[in-house]
């Protein structure tokens, strides 16, 4: 078990979500940056589908009530185990009563903590991902007790770490495909969309990232259609909204672009004020 001594800004248990429940109007949900989360899991020999703790900008303070192995990937929130700094992207052993502290981010936005065997919190509709209006709890609460499996490693002192590709944080390139309504845009609008630099507005969360700049348009709303994480919607007022993992399953704004899965991971590490540029993967 792990006890929550401090929650951090926005911390939640996430796995790869519940895509099969979109037919019931349930958000896909799941880790925002699947690349980093999978990295943390794989380092421990976990399944990619195991649940991890996602922390945003400011991390949690946690106390272990069992022995386990842990690994941390994604944003660097300056993790410390019992007040000594620990490395990212490697396997660390933690013992009962150890205290794991996270601070402010120095690189990236979302950090992932994995433990051996994965977090064992409640499964709702095939997933442990916390999500508003689906699970009772949306974020960690003070004094929560998160179930984990006791793990006593035979050998300790493993020292290997993996090199994390820093492009993941630094690249401003967001790979996209044409969305279903892309061709409703005129030539100038397409040019502007694909050749300008955009920045992320302060409206950014697990549901959607809104961009600061507008793309003027007179597009009609569409008949309500499916949307999914990575869909870029264009509103009548010209706002560009990039839907993220907790987005609703249908929408009525034209869907002009669709992010590549890897681009969603890159975007998830960006926040207010960061720049991005769409890179269209051409029709071959």
């Amino acid at each position, binding site marked *: 078990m792990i006890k929550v001594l401090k929650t951090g800004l926005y911390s939640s248990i996430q796995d790869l979500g519940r895509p099969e429940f979109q037919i019931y109007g349930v958000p896909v949900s799941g880790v925002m940056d699947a690349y980093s989360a999978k990295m943390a899991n794989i380092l421990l020999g976990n399944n990619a589908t195991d649940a991890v703790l996602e922390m945003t900008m400011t991390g949690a303070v946690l106390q272990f009530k069992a022995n386990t192995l842990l690994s941390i990937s994604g944003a660097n929130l300056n993790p410390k185990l019992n007040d000594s700094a620990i490395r990212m992207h490697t396997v660390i052993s933690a013992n009962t009563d150890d205290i794991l502290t996270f601070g402010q981010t120095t690189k990236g936005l979302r950090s992932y903590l994995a433990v051996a065997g994965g977090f064992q919190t409640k499964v709702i509709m095939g997933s442990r991902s916390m999500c508003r209006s689906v699970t009772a709890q949306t974020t960690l609460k003070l004094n929560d007790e998160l179930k984990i499996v006791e793990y006593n490693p035979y050998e300790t002192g493993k020292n290997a770490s993996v090199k994390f590709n820093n492009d993941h944080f630094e690249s401003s390139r967001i790979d996209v495909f044409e969305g279903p309504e892309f061709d409703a845009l005129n030539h100038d609008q397409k040019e502007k969309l694909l050749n300008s630099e955009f920045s992320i507005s302060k409206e950014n969360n697990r549901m959607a990232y809104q961009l600061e700049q507008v793309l003027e348009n007179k597009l009609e709303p569409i008949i309500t259609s*499916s949307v999914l994480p990575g869909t870029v919607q264009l509103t009548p007022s010209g706002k560009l909204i990039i839907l993220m993992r907790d987005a609703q399953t249908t929408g009525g704004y034209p869907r002009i672009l669709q992010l590549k899965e890897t681009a969603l991971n890159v975007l998830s590490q960006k926040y207010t004020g960061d720049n991005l540029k769409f890179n269209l993967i051409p029709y071959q």
Partner: protein
Amino acid sequence: MNDVLNFKKALQNKYAKQKVYINSAYCSILISYDTTINNIYDRISDIKRQYSKEFGHDKSTYNLWRIPVCYDDYFALDLDELSEVKKCDKSEIIRRHCEAVYTVYFIGFLPGFLYLGGLHKNLHMPRKAKPRLNLLGGAVGIGGQQTGIYPHDGPGGWNIIGNSPVDLFKADQDKPCFAKAGDRVQFYKVTLEEHQKIKALEATGFYKLESEVIDD
């Protein structure tokens, strides 16, 4: 509608052995793959070819669900206004709302929110200029040409004419919503007392919604 559902079924057969999630809306289909696709544009033309071919018109079974609604003034926040605007007795509005057999086009917007088609023309009413911030879960409303039930407490801009005691979204169940795209829905009027009784029964998990199988 049938075209969408039949093609969805054909795709489900095609992908029976793969981990693929297929969802439909009014006139679109979304296919989510669990695996990486090497060339998305090849895949799109493959699916377009499949669509241009004849695809099976399998007999699918759908249900007609009878959903209780309490139209009492206690819940029906906008029924008086609707009655005035439409120059139509409240009882007549309720009769029309209960008379129609609605088609479930799909579930979206919120978990368990049914997109229903078939609202009587005289009941069409624009959404409220200012949405309410705190609607009660189960609120039955009219928004434009649509009617529907808000599954949870929350904000909403539709004109509220009643409340259903039925829980539309049970997160702890494998099948969290009773209805699926293609099913039908009909409302029937219950009193405030009956609403409370059903609500209590629903909370214990023993309430069973009336339904019948229909052929399509």
